[in-house]
């Protein structure tokens, strides 16, 4: 009979746990802009990736098979551990492991734009996405993409397969850098040293590029009103 007496206490404990979890999700939803349903699904994915632990390390992300094909794999994984992507300005450096909150904050860069967003909000979202991409290129965190950093990205994209030699990759990077310089600093004297691409330059280059539709992940919304199975509840 002892088990029946324990039931109300267990019930209370469980309810408390669920309340806490719900509150936690709502807080995360507020910070990241996802809905609680999406956060729940992402949390499940987080647990899958981390092997049911509290944090994800680089090795966990490294072992995703579909990611192995991606030439920007290393940069993408680093982006998750980059403090600059945590929406807190002025923090630089990288984390060793990330928790659910960090994971969601990085994911929020790829959140689809809300339907009723005004012009300002859309501009802000665009700026965020460009910033994410900029941080990915600017590996040392000094706010400027130098030629060396840019070359590295080109190499990652191209030369590992061996089809393109080191020299060719270098040449492509130099040509692209020259193009950038000519857009942003057209009146440079021949001896001036072009330091690198700042974030403003970056935005300038990509001004006309229509990237809103390409830089977000469309989460399937589980529409619960359409899926009752069996008899409808009275």
């Amino acid at each position, binding site marked *: 009979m002892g088990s029946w007496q324990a039931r109300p206490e267990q019930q209370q404990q469980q309810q408390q746990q669920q309340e806490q979890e719900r509150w936690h999700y709502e807080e995360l939803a507020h910070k990241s802009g996802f809905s609680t349903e999406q956060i729940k699904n992402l949390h499940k994915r987080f647990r899958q990736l981390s092997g049911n632990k509290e944090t994800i390390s680089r090795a966990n992300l490294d072992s995703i098979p579909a990611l192995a094909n991606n030439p920007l794999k290393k940069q993408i994984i680093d982006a998750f551990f980059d403090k600059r992507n945590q929406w807190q300005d002025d923090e630089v450096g990288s984390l060793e492991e990330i928790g659910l909150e960090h994971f969601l904050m990085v994911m929020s860069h790829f959140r689809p734009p809300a339907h009723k967003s005004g012009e300002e909000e859309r501009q802000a979202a665009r700026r965020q996405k460009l910033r994410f991409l900029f941080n990915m290129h600017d590996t040392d965190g000094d706010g400027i993409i130098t030629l060396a950093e840019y070359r590295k990205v080109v190499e990652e994209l191209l030369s590992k397969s061996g089809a393109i030699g080191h020299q060719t990759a270098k040449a492509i990077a130099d040509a692209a850098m020259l193009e950038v310089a000519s857009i942003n600093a057209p009146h440079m004297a021949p001896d001036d040293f072009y330091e690198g691409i700042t974030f403003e330059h970056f935005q300038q280059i990509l001004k006309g590029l229509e990237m809103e539709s390409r830089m977000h992940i469309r989460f399937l919304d589980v529409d619960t009103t359409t899926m*009752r199975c069996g008899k409808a509840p009275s």
Partner: protein
Amino acid sequence: MEDFWAVVVWAGRIWLCLIISLIMIPAMFGFSLGISETYMDILVKILEWATLKLQKATAEEHALKASASSALIQREDGSMEKELEELRRSRPKPPVGGDFTLSDCFYFTRRGIESIVEDEVTQRFTSEELVSWNLLTRTNNDFQYISLRLTLVYGLGIFVRYCILAPLRITLACIGLTWLVIGTSAVGLLPNWRVKFWLSEWVHVMCYRICARGLSAAIRYHNRENIPQKGGICVANHTTPIDIVILCNDACYAMVGQVHGGLMGVIQRAMVRSCPHVWFERAEMKDRHLVAKRLKDHVNDKTKLPILIFPEGTCINNTSVMMFKKGSFEIGATIYPVAIKYDPKFGDAFWNSSKYSMVSYLLRMMTSWALVCNVWYLPAMHQQEGEDAVQFANRVKSAIAHQGGLVDLQWDGGLKRAKVKESFKEQQQKQYSHMVVGDDGSSNSD
């Protein structure tokens, strides 16, 4: 004290008699008394009732999910070339010099993030999610106290499963295995008359039937006219070692595998006495030619039973079919594909070998409600002209996936433990670099 023991012995005898008469004899002769059917009907009714209860209770919280394999995100269908073209076209300035630009990074970044959010492979190595709770503790992720009756049924279920069904099933499994060893050894002593083949088949099927009862397996076979014939190879999708019991309930196969020690070794040696199976030593498995030769010899001998092979090489969670290894498709024999689909409501059949050992897996199986599965025999397939082994394997795989309602994946099941091979990565990189350099090789030649 003596009375107590006398009672225990007497109860044990009654128990054995019941088992033998109600379960073993029907199993030996292949007819059914209808007990398990009644059990399954009651079970289905209880689970439906439980589902409705759960639905009503959680209706306000919108807690139901659409389907077990709900996708998280929607992916673009376009190929890499198409998307990169679009990205470049929308640039304000016409591309000159280095054709690739920062805009290409968008595409790859997005694809990378999509892979992190959801990838097809990692989710195949964990158990399938259920749409609604099936009153087992192990599938219970967020148990809420809903009603007294539901909890009572749940408690009763635990009692029935652990105290009544589990001992029964364990007894049956032990009897089945012992009988298999004894029976096959006995048949092996006979000289090679026709009777020997018939007897050996009968002993095998009987023992597997007892083992199947030992797991409360309810198997439905479809298209039995396509059953594998002698001199062919039977291929099936792999979810658990119990697949063997499921398939051997209906027909006799020759097994292929590594020689083990211990209990498995005893069983293997006994089986080989009554009819020829193909067991390899560990060292021999590495030599592909030797393996192929032995299989070929077996297949060419028309008196030997069809070989049973699981080309995926590892256990997948029964929501998809992964890459078939081409070894068995190179032999040139007739392939008989078989699709096996388990019903997850009654018990999760998937063996997650990294999480559970064989023994704890078997115990879990014996304390589930039941094992319900459908087996479809597909028409025989041959390798066509101009088709190499890999294409043939993919064709068979698609047929099996289509019939069983499983997702057809190109990925290798070995990714459970290993990383992606470098050759796959290089292919993608080659494709991309061709796009960049190949198009304007003239402006970039140094």
